[in-house]
């Protein structure tokens, strides 16, 4: 099952921030691949959603970038800024809290009961 893009849209910032917190520095393609890998293909981040989000995070000062030349092309690595680190904790705990609320709201029983 692949999740709908609407579900992913609201959580994309959190996903990207958490990945950067765990991996120091990453580039766009790497992020999409890592998410695919970790979620066993269930979450596939589209390019059309990822890059706008990365640019927004950069302009908010939550991530910093460094560029590396790979032959003729440029690769942009993203890493967390100090304020990004705080924001990540905030975002992750917010999402965890949200998931608890949703479980309660939608009356979802744990699968392994």
């Amino acid at each position, binding site marked *: 099952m692949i999740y709908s893009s609407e579900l992913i849209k609201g959580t994309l910032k959190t996903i990207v921030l958490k990945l950067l917190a765990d991996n120091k520095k990453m580039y*766009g*393609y790497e992020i999409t691949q890592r998410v695919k890998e970790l979620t066993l293909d269930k979450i596939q981040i589209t390019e059309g959603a990822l*890059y706008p989000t990365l*640019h927004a995070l950069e302009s908010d000062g939550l991530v910093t970038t460094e560029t590396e030349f790979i032959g003729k*092309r440029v690769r942009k690595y993203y890493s967390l800024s100090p304020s990004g680190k705080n924001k990540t904790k905030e975002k992750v705990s917010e999402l965890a809290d949200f998931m608890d609320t949703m479980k309660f709201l939608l009356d979802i029983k744990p699968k392994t009961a």
Partner: protein
Amino acid sequence: MYQLSDKQIDYIFDDISARGVEMESLQQNLLDHICCIIEQNLEANGDFENFYQKTIKTFYKDALWEIEEETILLLTFKNYYTMKKIMIISGTFSAVVMSIGIFFKFMHWPGAALCILLGIVISSLVFLPLLFTLKAKEKQTIKDKLILGLATFSGILISSAVLFKIMHWPGANMMGLTFVIIMLVLYIPLYFFSGIKNPEAKVNTIVTTIIMIMGCGLFLTLVNSRPTTRNLSDSEIEYLANDEVMIKNESEKLNKIAGSDTSLTKSIARAEEIYKICEELKADILEYEIGYKSITTDLKGKNILVSNALVNNLFGSNRELYEKKISRLDKLIQEQRIYCWLEKVRLTKKEEVSRPQILFNSSVLFNDFDFIYYNNTVFGAYKNISDVQLNSIEDLKEFVELKQLLNKQPS
């Protein structure tokens, strides 16, 4: 694993640009991303062209530039909302503070000026520029943006003009006049001719234009930027000069008949001070208005102009001094009237004797001065002071004459 050549990389880069992606960092991101996908997924001897076209299609729904559009939207979205928030907060705040200030001003409570100042400064320096920035984004043509800019500038100008006016700072009338000129010569024609072309907005445009012209007219009356003038006729000069002569004569007569009576020393001194202050005020007023210190028959035929400028303009520049003089004059005249009345009552032993109104409502006289001070024209103030001066002399003279008359009669 496929190995991309430099030529192929250039090809991809050009294609991304050709598809409408203009932001450099986004171009680089997408280029690297596509290269990674191709290198990872295409076999070493695969068909590059075909594979690339297939891959790039998975990036978007309708066109590649959607990604750039989404990026720009996300970047401006946040700013847009903060700006909108600040605009609404500053607008509400300045409106509330200004209303409080105006209420305080009416009640003569302290802090009114500060509130009004704060309100006007915030509305003209924060609210209006933000409103302009946000609205300008919505307007498509340069002409529309220009109209909006003019409107904002006019708004700032008018609020500053009002501020300067109530703070008695110089330049208020100049700003008010500039505002009216900008409105009438630039803004209203631009607004009218750009709006009239749109069939849907035609009626609205006409109505709004008429209301704006009416507003400018009303404002111009308020600003009173050009006092109308009239010539003082020879007969009026003659009349006023005669008044001056009469005041002088009556004053001299009073001194003559009362001079020897030592019991009157105090009231005569008071009368002299009243006379002196009135003369000073009149001299200032006349010099300001007509350039001469007094009105004599010599001025006949000299083309003397008087305006409908308010006396506030004259007093405004040296308010404290005039306020002091006028309240002193007010106090002296009240004392003199009460003294004359009490003495007359004492002499005749009848309470009804020309009882001055002043005793029962002491504000009546003061209001006379208020009127002189704030709302009267410069020339009207001159006439008022002349009247006050003559009345006070006549009042005392009447009492002195009565006193002397009674003294002559055998008791």
